[in-house]
């Protein structure tokens, strides 16, 4: 019996049909077509499913719908403003910080959360924060460089 019928995603209230025990990831992917958030492990160990909930990184695969309520969800699809990419998206492109790129949306969302709470993280703060995100192709050094670059871009833009 579906008890949850609304979800606040990327600035819009969307109609859904979910139980409190359902995983946020599958509601996003299967009901709302927001497939930028990925399934990687189902136990919050790889970070491919990372979204922002009220600005903070959360693993959507282990986030139960019952805990979401009217909190604001941001997915990778909601990060750019129109055609203007978020600094992290631009920096990941500039640094070619991807190979298969299946981890990329989760990496960017985790990094967005990091930059929300710490506008100029040190390298070790980046490594610590990103430890929960797996890249199997091995683009980690480029990802770190991209996050550093995005932090600089944001500061330059006076954000």
């Amino acid at each position, binding site marked *: 019996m579906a008890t949850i019928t609304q979800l606040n995603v990327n600035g819009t209230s969307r109609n859904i049909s979910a139980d409190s025990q359902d995983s946020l990831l599958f509601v996003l992917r299967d009901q709302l077509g927001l497939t930028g958030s990925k399934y990687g492990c189902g136990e919050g160990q790889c970070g491919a499913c990372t979204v922002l909930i009220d600005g903070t990184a959360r693993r959507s695969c282990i986030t139960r719908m019952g805990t979401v309520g009217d909190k604001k969800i941001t997915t990778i699809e909601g990060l750019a403003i129109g055609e203007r*990419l978020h600094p992290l998206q631009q920096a990941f492109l500039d640094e070619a910080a991807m190979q298969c790129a299946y981890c990329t949306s989760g990496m*960017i969302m985790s990094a967005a959360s990091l930059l929300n709470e710490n506008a100029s993280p040190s390298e070790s703060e980046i490594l610590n924060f990103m430890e929960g995100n797996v890249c199997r192709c091995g683009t980690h*050094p480029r990802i770190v460089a991209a996050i550093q670059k995005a932090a600089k871009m944001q500061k330059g833009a006076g954000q």
Partner: protein
Amino acid sequence: MTAKPNFEIPVEPERYELREAPPYRFETDRREFFKYLGAGVLILCAAKAARGAQESGGGQRHSGEALPQEISAWLHVGEDGSVTVFTGKVEVGQNIRTSLTQAVAEELHVAVDKVQMVMGDTQLTPYDRGTFGSLSTPVMNLQLRRAAAAACDIFINLAAAQWQVDRTQLLAADGRVTDQATRKSVEYAALVKGQQLTETLPAEDPLAPATEWTVAGKSLPKVDGRDFVTGKHQYPSDQKIPDMLYGKVVRPSAFNATLVSVDTHAAEQIPGVTVVHDGNFIGVAAPSATAARTAAAAIRADWKSDPQPSNKELFEYLKKNAVPRDAEGDHGDPMPYHSGSIETAMKSADHHLQQTYTVAYIAHCPLEPRAALAQWNGDRLTVWTGTQRPFGVRTELASAFHISEDQVRVLMPDMGSGYGGKHTGETAIEAARLARAAKRPVKVTWTREEEFTWAYFRPAGVIEITSGMSADGTVTAWEYHNYNSGTAGIRTYYDIANQKIEFHPSRSPLRQGSYRGLAATANHFARESHMDELAHMAGRDPLAFRLHNLKDDRLKAVFKAAAQKFDWGRAKALPGQGFGIAGGFDKGGYIATCAEVSVDRASGDVKVTRIVAAFECGAIVNPDGLRNQVVGANIMGLGGALFEAIEFENGQILNGRFSKYRLPRFSDIPPIEAVLLDRKDLPSAGAGESPIEGLAPAIGNAIFDASGVRLRSMPLVPNGLKTT
């Protein structure tokens, strides 16, 4: 006449999943092409040379069978100037879509954004054996360059005919032909208006030498990168079509289990659920993923399985269960490889060494687990799936459903990596079986646990080496036995007069198959660890010892380049520090790796603190893409070198989740410097695999240098370094 591919590469025996040959192959009608793409110029790349049967997957065809001419790629330039390239190769993160785009833009003299690649669609692209073996660059890059050059030639000839001038005064650039004398200029598009020109590619087309490359040879960002950073790209697991159901398979309790009884009644009562029980296959299709999970959980199945070996007795088991080499379908190096006399050489040697090395099973762990969406239209089947072998999956589907291959279309959206782990079509078959029963499209996406359990693993292995050496540090005898892991990279590149090298297949307790680098990782680990032991035995510096025993100049060059960058030979700066070096040659690539480690003797903690990898694979096509591959291979390799190992018992995987199977993470990764040697005078080879192969022995040798402890098993330190 048998069809002939133009690049003969043996299939290594450890590619167990590739043994079956496709029973049929059908030529695409060229007229269909112009119908699909409109008028223009179509270039077909004919594959030349012999051994079509091998190219199609290792098996044998009926002799005397007439086959259509093998075509390896198509290139079409339309009336609107758009360039469309068709290749059966697929993009799995190695950035081949980008580097092939570059190759075509270079030879055709068009802007990169004018080129569109259609990849891995069995209906639209020519047959391709698969994207593996580091062949996309040496084979497909070359073929597409030829196709693009041939198309460019046609445009020049058309313009020469139209203007009644000598073609030597015409120049192709930026999608136009220009008369250098009159400055008259025409777009390619205008030259082919209303025409349907076809040319089958001559093999001897001249190509621009690497020294004259303008587009290829430079770094080019991922051509569709924006789709990936915005979440827009649709991976196989993201595919969705109207009316689609979600599938779930009920798995056996253990490997090789047989079904004793099954009760599907409860599941069948759930509205909208279709249950399939067909032999050992049990699965459900339901309107949502949640409903599919619920229905699968409602099925009561009893399975029976026999006791099976565990990882604890694995290496004994592999040696005990060695089987004779299968002559059929085994196209690896001829074995045993023999030269000189081991016996005589061992007798006269001043030093003798005998050691055993082992390598555990590991999992590919592509971040995107296998996924397939299947749709039936009458007796025609379309499947979108993540695979490195769309044509191989087409064959599997045709065989599973007793239909012909021309009734099956497999499409491969750029996927979330493979590393050699996605060569087979089980997910596609599962989705298709459920879709046929449900009479609606069905998508099956494997969970991480399913991916860990029901895919296949990199073969485990036992390697025994017996060697002899003269007092001056010249290795004179080399006897080498590899049990189960495979033949890739098994031959030594050191100049040793007396050799015996043999591969012994075994009855593997787990399903095994290709993995990035194949057995070359295991063989390099054993060989380069052993060479290090010999160097220490001879009292020689490990680098000098290797150079002394080497004749291959390309390999010497990477060893020297790595050592120079690493500052090999410098004094240790810290207690617990150690340096190691290792290298080798595989699949056209030369790799030498230096590793620096830090060992804490009290806690047993081992940290890799620096890696330098020197790599040479001929002329570099895309330097940044290559750097990304070399660094990425070393990061992936850290897992197998240090801590990855599959634990299993009685047909069950015990650590098949990311919370139990440790992967390299941000904090594990040291600074990695890639030194790329660009040999513009040599043909380009692939680089997706061989850069991984020097790492594990370099780390093992560095740990020995730091601690005096010689580790002979991969992974080296799953639980830290035990020094007592």
